[in-house]
């Protein structure tokens, strides 16, 4: 009986031991993974004098350790006593170790923000220099300054989203309380959007001259009396997706003139880290100055150009904007059906600026919006990307919708059709999108 017990106990202990080993090895693996991902290393961003100081301390500590060990070993062997000097070296080892620890912590954690900002500043300087070179514009040119401001804002948005979005953990709890709806049109606005808008605005306003800032968030920024340019900011395009933790949303910034023609634009998708930007007349780029046109042409070469393989991004109409669901909505649905029947493949992410950016990248041959709630704010930034990426090979048109008025710019109904020339003309005429337009007024 007792024997059985002891065997059972041993088996159980073995199990527990296995489990513990498993847990420890898992934790170790996690730790290693964390260390592996820690880039840049704290050591890498220390300035040389900090490296020298810590290095020196480590060297002194090592010398003391070796000396003390030797003395203690010798005294054990020969039976002599340690001298006062030996004791002093022995006890001084501990403050040396402590100071190494403290300094490493201080340089990596406490002094780090400053260095991080320095890194960022350096990055922005590099961006500015590259911009001058790539766009062939002087350093104080209006567009170039605007692009640099926008880029800075995007950088901060990236860092903000990385902590705030936190890959889904806080989003639901954070935004379920933080979300609110605008009763008129069923749009969802998020406090996250307000935060981002404030952040972007502070960067856009950081330099003079300041321009007005327009967005669909319920905040207004003071408008200079005689403005030549204006910022249009959509802090989160795709609020619904953020709310539901879908990683498909963007931040879009555009610099427009009094006629709402875009001159500089940036579209940033934080979850995938994609940045698209364009300056009117100077090309569209993505990420690290990769020319969108080149990327698109390469795509087109690689993928068959047959009409059957055309891919078009469509914004599906939604009934929110049409309280009465009248003839306008019916006509849009008819157009949609025409498009569906004539175009090979349809996609619809529901995020206008992203659809336009991908059209500019060549992933879609064209982009068309049909909903009643599309506003200029949503599409201006992306439209410039398409215009600059396609150049003469494409066409991008923004036309005012039937029944839309000139007043209340944020809610005016506009349609954008942009992309490859033949696809756009097919959309406009064959798919009867044209019939939705009031005249042929081109707003781009």
């Amino acid at each position, binding site marked *: 009986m007792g024997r059985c017990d002891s065997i059972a106990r041993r088996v159980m202990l073995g199990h527990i031991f296995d489990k513990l080993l498993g847990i420890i090895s898992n934790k170790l693996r996690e730790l290693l993974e964390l260390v592996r991902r820690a880039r840049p290393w704290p050591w890498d961003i220390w300035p040389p004098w900090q490296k020298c100081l810590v290095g020196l301390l480590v060297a002194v500590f090592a010398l003391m350790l070796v000396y003390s060990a030797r003395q203690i070993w010798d005294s054990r062997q020969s039976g002599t006593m340690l001298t006062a000097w030996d004791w002093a070296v022995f006890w001084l080892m501990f403050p040396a170790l402590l100071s190494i620890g403290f300094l490493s912590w201080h340089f990596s954690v406490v002094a780090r923000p400053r260095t991080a900002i320095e890194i960022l500043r350096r990055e922005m300087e590099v961006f500015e220099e590259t911009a001058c070179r790539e766009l062939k514009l002087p350093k104080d040119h209006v567009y170039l300054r605007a692009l640099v401001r926008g880029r800075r804002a995007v950088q901060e948005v990236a860092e903000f989203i990385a902590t705030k979005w936190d890959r889904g953990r806080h989003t639901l709890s954070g935004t379920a309380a933080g979300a609110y709806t605008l009763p008129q049109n069923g749009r969802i606005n998020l406090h996250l959007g307000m935060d981002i808008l404030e952040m972007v605005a502070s960067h856009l306003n950081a330099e003079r001259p300041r321009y007005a800032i327009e967005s669909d968030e319920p905040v207004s920024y003071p408008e200079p009396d005689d403005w030549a340019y204006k910022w249009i900011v959509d802090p989160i395009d795709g609020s619904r997706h953020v709310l539901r933790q879908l990683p498909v949303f963007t931040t879009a910034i555009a610099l427009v003139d009094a006629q709402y023609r875009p001159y500089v634009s940036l579209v940033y998708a934080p979850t995938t880290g994609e940045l698209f930007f364009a300056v009117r007349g100077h090309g569209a780029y993505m990420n690290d100055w990769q020319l969108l046109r080149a990327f698109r042409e390469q795509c087109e070469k690689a993928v068959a150009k047959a009409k059957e393989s055309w891919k078009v991004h469509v914004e599906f109409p939604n009934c929110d904007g049409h309280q009465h669901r009248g003839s306008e909505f019916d006509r849009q649905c008819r157009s949609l059906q025409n498009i*569906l029947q004539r175009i090979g493949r349809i996609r619809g992410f529901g995020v206008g600026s992203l659809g336009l950016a991908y059209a500019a990248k060549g992933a879609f041959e064209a982009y068309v919006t049909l909903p009643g709630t599309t506003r200029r704010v949503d599409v201006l930034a992306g439209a410039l990307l398409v215009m600059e990426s396609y150049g003469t090979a494409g066409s991008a048109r923004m036309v005012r919708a039937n029944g839309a008025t000139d007043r209340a710019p944020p809610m005016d109904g506009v349609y954008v059709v942009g992309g490859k020339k033949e696809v756009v003309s097919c959309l406009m005429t064959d798919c009867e999108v044209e019939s939705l337009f009031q005249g042929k007024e081109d707003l781009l």
Partner: protein
Amino acid sequence: MTLDELLGNAQRIVRDVGTIAREGFGRSPIVRCKEGNDIVTRADLEIEDYVLSSLRALYPHHGFDSEEAGEQRADAEYVWILDPIDGTKYYARGVPLYSISLALRKQETLILGVVYSPETQQMFSAALEKGARVIDGANDREIECSHTTQLDQATVCVEIPSRDALPGERHWAMQKMRDLVDSVPRVRLLGVGALSLCYCAMGGFDAYVNLGSGTRLYDMAAGQAVLQEAGGQFRQIRAKIVAGPPRLCEQLLEFLGLDER
């Protein structure tokens, strides 16, 4: 060979090939075109090769069913179903909405599914009767389908047949698509089956409707496993698929005029 162990290995392998996918994203050369305008990139083949060889080394007696390599020992008790890259066209054209999906079938039941989106680094996984999870960076959390019960409050993710489909089928799908746009507040069309199903499983979309885009088993298996474990239903009626929370599924089937007969 426990289910946890199988799941762990599947996750590890899929995460490993994620790096191959990220390296070739938007620049992996197209090796050949298949029927129906489908393409195969070099990354497809590399990923398939890596996954199949590592699985073969771990489980020599299992069967495999993969997009390019086809079926191998498909009558084995356990069969791994792999789609190296779902959304190859997006992948080749630089749209980050593509995924790697791997599922395991024991006889006729799906017991395991892993879908990995390398660009957003989200890993959806599910094992039979153990729930569905998403591992997103350092977070690992359980997911479940949306709780929306009314079709007129739902966001629906749709897929429609491309132009290669039969005209009759296509016409029917266009009609239904129009009806959906007419009566559902938001319609989305991502064009990647596995990811759409996973987003549906985590409540990103309320329901998923495939109006006959010609999907095959390996496109859907992993997504189906994740969705079912997240509390959703997966109903396949001929070439059409309706998936989502049970009550929405019923309503959608009725709305589309589909019945199981």
